[in-house]
């Protein structure tokens, strides 16, 4: 039977294969070549070896973008991740308003970043809700143009991503928590373990696979952050809110430096590859343990 239907099977894979080769694989190979050229996407590309890659390390904008991405990853690891676990643990019990609470946390996840940017631009504007609240709380010293000042703009954008990002992570952690058998907690309670001990000795170890995945998603998501800075600040003031994805877009479509932009895109991919590799290593080690 197998042999008879191998021809049909080949026909079944063919559309996907053609589409994938045409719109992913082929452009990818071409891109690798272009990344070694100087090219304005109109005239013929000229081979220049590794110059694009070398320039990446001198380009102030690129470095600023990489630094911002790094800050975001750090924030994700140290604040977003623990906070999401905490909220998930709190949410993971029976509440009178449980349905509402969960829906409220998940809801922002489906919102588009475009609309998110539009709404927050007004909440955060100089005469917006946030400053008004600060004034009324007697914290007028804190009032500022949150998206217009060099030293607050990027942290504001990071906090903005949390409106959606937090719920996104909580979804994962709630799913993870619900897969932990309840009798483990029962047993430890009988053995006299306190809440903190139960959290550290049962919840965290069993949640480890989820933590790995979420950490990975946070970092990769941060690498691709584009919509919010594009719409709200164009990376400014100066390069204060530049991100890698924005820098790559601008290099190609604003500065017509396609070869260079692609080289940066290739480096972005390499970073994602390395993170994926590390993550797979960690997950695999965990699987052996369990």
């Amino acid at each position, binding site marked *: 039977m197998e042999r008879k239907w*191998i021809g049909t099977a080949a026909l*079944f894979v063919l559309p996907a294969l053609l*589409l994938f080769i045409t719109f992913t694989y082929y452009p990818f190979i071409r891109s690798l070549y272009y990344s070694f050229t100087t090219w304005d996407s109109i005239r013929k590309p000229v081979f220049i070896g590794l110059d694009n890659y070398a320039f990446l390390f001198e380009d102030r904008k690129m470095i600023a973008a990489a630094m911002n991405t790094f800050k975001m990853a750090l924030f994700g690891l140290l604040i977003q991740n623990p906070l999401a676990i905490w909220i998930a643990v709190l949410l993971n019990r029976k509440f009178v308003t449980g349905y*509402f*609470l969960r829906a409220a946390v998940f809801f922002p996840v489906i919102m588009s970043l475009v609309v998110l940017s539009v709404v927050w631009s007004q909440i955060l504007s100089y005469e917006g809700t946030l400053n008004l609240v600060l004034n009324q709380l007697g914290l007028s010293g804190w009032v500022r143009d949150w998206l217009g000042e060099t030293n607050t703009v990027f942290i504001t954008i990071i906090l903005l991503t949390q409106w959606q990002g937090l719920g996104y992570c909580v979804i994962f952690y709630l799913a993870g928590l619900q897969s932990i058998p309840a009798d483990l907690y029962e047993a430890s309670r009988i053995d006299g373990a306190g809440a903190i001990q139960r959290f550290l000795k049962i919840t965290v170890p069993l949640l480890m696979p989820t933590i790995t995945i979420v950490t990975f998603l946070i970092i990769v998501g941060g690498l691709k952050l584009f919509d919010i800075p594009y719409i709200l600040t164009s990376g400014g003031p100066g390069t204060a809110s530049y991100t890698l994805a924005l820098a790559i877009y601008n290099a190609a479509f604003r500065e017509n430096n396609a070869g260079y*932009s692609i080289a940066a895109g290739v480096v972005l991919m390499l970073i*994602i590859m390395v993170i994926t590799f590390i993550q797979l290593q960690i997950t695999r080690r965990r699987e052996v343990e369990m």
Partner: protein
Amino acid sequence: MVRKRRNPTDIAIEVGLFLFACVLLYPIYFLYVGSFKSPAIFYDPFAFPKELYWGSFAIVFEKVKLLDGFFNTIVIMSFSLVSIVVICSMAGYAIARVKNRWFQAIYYLFLSGMIVPLQTTMVTIFKMGVSIQLIDTRTFMVLLYAAGAIPIATFIYVGFMKSIPKEIEESAFIDGCGPMQSFARIVLPLLLPATGTILITNVTAIYNDFMGPLLYLKSESKMTLMPQIVQFYANKQSMDYGPVFALSALAVLPLILLFIFTQKYMIKGLIVGSLKG
């Protein structure tokens, strides 16, 4: 009805979470209230409109081709979704059932696509679109969305196929069903949960996508909703945000309704769908 007495900590936690939930929902409230505020009170964040002001919506309908936007978004989305489901379920079925080196190689080729970000290939794809004269067409968008979804969707289908026993198809073969027929009549319906996951992930991803249309669409008549909002926002013709809010409020409404009715499935779908890199 007997109620268990709740301890004070639980109540405190619930109240705390309730306040947190209100903070999370505030922007949505702000968006919808804002779109009904008259210009006179728009910039007073705490003002609540005493009567519904429809002027912002009137401006939106006058200045933005909103119906075109909806039409384009829905058309691109539907064609993409159908293509993704048809193409990837077929591929996933074949890969899961034929344990041959070539099919496994193709599978790994697909999976490797997960780590290539759009940023690496977008310029080349743009250039390619120009040379095959598909740039600025909705067809191009559909092809790109379909191609982009292949790695994760095939992955989900191949994984799900493992839970479908081979015997079902074998008995169909004996009854004289060809592979095509047994796929369409037996396998595809059984793949429904996987299809649901794939649909939900891609609905939000395609509906909310801004970068794709920004890169590959140009004509106003073909534009989707998200770039329409950004353009309207960037033009700031009257420095008046009321209409921008009204436009945004209208644009997100379909997804909000979808979320309300399919919350459970959506959340499950988002988890599985985001496992890609």
